[in-house]
């Protein structure tokens, strides 16, 4: 955990990573508090429409303009953060819940069971990203919950593989042998020694993956099989602005920009964490602060 403190200290010295961190924190904060800071909640939630205010370009009163139902886009985009956050956390969380136990068992016990699990993982990974989610969403039906489920089912294999490799590495560490010699039972070894060490890289990866989850969920919504109207999820907002793109570019533009900035934040943070994890590059980072 002191590693985290070192990481944060280093991050403060690096403007780009700091920007990424701020973006991510803002996204999470916005996702949590957005329902409470809306100036026009009826617009955001989609319960109101005012035909007299359709297709208004960006102005002081409506910084992001209005859509075809006269709804204020700024409010809609802000509320959209909440749904993106929900999806990101839901997808990653569910994928972890499925993937980690499978990877743990496969890695620690190995043998026929382990092999079978890894073969299953390979079979799932034979699909390009999102394709499985599309098939599942088409089968299970549309909507937020099904979108999260579909994405999670297409995602868990990545975590299983990651944990499998981690567990295998940790398994051959001397302290595991020591624990065995001391007579600790398998389950106990697994939970107390192997799991914490194997888990860290996976958790970090998962946290950073939230950006990709937002991107993929937006894609699903754009294709019409994710979140459904009037929910203001960013991908859906972009698709809603599509047919009026020539007269009202702002309807698609701002939600898409929100996706871009959010994913950018996660990418910058990922870059930083990756450099931090690499011992050689970390030394350069630390030295710049020491001197």
């Amino acid at each position: 955990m002191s590693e985290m403190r070192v990481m944060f200290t280093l991050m403060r010295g690096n403007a780009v990573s700091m920007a990424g961190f701020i973006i991510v924190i803002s996204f999470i904060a916005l996702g949590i508090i957005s329902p409470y800071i809306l100036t026009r909640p009826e617009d955001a939630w989609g319960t109101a429409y005012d035909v007299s205010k359709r297709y208004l370009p960006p102005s002081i009163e409506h910084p992001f303009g209005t859509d075809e139902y006269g709804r204020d886009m700024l409010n809609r985009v802000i509320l959209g953060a909440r749904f993106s956050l929900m999806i990101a956390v839901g997808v990653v969380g569910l994928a972890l819940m499925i993937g980690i136990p499978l990877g743990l068992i496969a890695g620690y016990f190995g043998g026929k069971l382990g092999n079978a699990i890894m073969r299953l993982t390979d079979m799932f990974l034979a699909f390009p990203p999102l394709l499985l989610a599309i098939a599942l969403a088409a089968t299970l039906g549309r909507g937020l919950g099904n979108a999260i489920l579909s994405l999670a089912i297409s995602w868990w294999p990545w975590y299983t593989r990651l944990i499998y490799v981690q567990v295998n590495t940790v398994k051959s560490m001397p302290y595991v042998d020591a624990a065995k010699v001391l007579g600790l039972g398998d389950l106990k070894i697994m939970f107390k020694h192997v799991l914490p060490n194997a888990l860290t890289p996976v958790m970090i990866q998962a946290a950073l993956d939230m950006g990709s989850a937002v991107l993929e969920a937006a894609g699903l919504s754009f294709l019409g099989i994710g979140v459904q109207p009037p929910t203001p999820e960013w991908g859906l907002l972009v698709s809603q602005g599509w047919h009026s793109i020539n007269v009202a570019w702002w309807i698609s533009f701002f939600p898409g920009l929100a996706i871009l900035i959010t994913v950018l934040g996660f990418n910058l943070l990922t870059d930083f964490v990756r450099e931090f994890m690499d011992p050689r590059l970390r030394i350069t980072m630390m030295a710049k602060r020491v001197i």
Partner: protein
Amino acid sequence: MPLSRDYLMKRLILLIFVMFGVLIITFVITRVIPARPELLWAGPHATIEQIERARKELRLDQPIYIQLGYYLIDFIRGNWGISWRTKSSVLQDLLNALPATLELIILAFFAAALLGISLGIVAALRRNRIIDSIIRVFSVLGASMPVFWLSLIALLLFSSWLGWLPSSKRVDEILVIGTGFHPITGFYLIDSLLQGNLPVFVNVLNHMILPAAVLSLYPMSLSVRMTRAMMIEVMQEPFIRSFIAWGLPKRLVIYKYALKNAIVPVIASLGLSFGYTIIGAFMVELIFVWPGIGLYTSMALLSFDYPAIVGAVIIVALFYSAINLIVDLIHAWMDPRVRF
């Protein structure tokens, strides 16, 4: 550095298993998971008779393993169902749409890989200079951009506002009729050259620029980032110093040796990159009305055309597996340590 026949055979057999796995998974998703698969299969506007017919087609009153058996047989015999939207065979629809998508994806992907790797090398060799920063900014933005949003923006900018490029389809009808162009392979670029039809060739290229450029941005950004990182890492390797100490010229050390070590992992990751390209094509084809598999599938999704969706998923997954095999073989060819 030849690959052994054993290794090739092993990989081919593995591919067969993977494809089998794909079929099993799609079977589970489309027949086992839904409570009433025949409803999905017949479509939202089906009559009772059509639903009953679907029940018989899918052999839903039989035990699961028999269903699976027929599923596989149907697959092999090309009986992939009828798209209720187009009223024709799903397999036929897909095969018709395939060349358009392939043309687009291949162009986009190779542009992405070649440009991406080149830019990555430039950035690595001129590390921390201005050009490096520019390339890094460009590539991190490219890796964060939703492709559907970019498509819309590009369409708006280059087609609607500037009028430089066309906004949809593969070629202008007028030109096709006027010059008597007819498709042979389905790859319009090749076909137009084969017929010596230069105006159509240029026109097709014109139509391709925007969708291909937009599609290539994401995989290109991934390639740039990875190549740059790998190149920097490889330059720190001990053998670089020993080669220079042994008198090899710097140019040889970088462009023959270091480059290969850096590129091998990048090439290994191209399979996944290609996967992203394929999915990106779904959205790009939809927005640019490009008559390929992506458009077909997106329309199928919008109209709840289940057989078409399933057929598209299967064909794309199988294609992706085949591509991955090729990438793996190239990887093994380049890196002798991988061949077990």
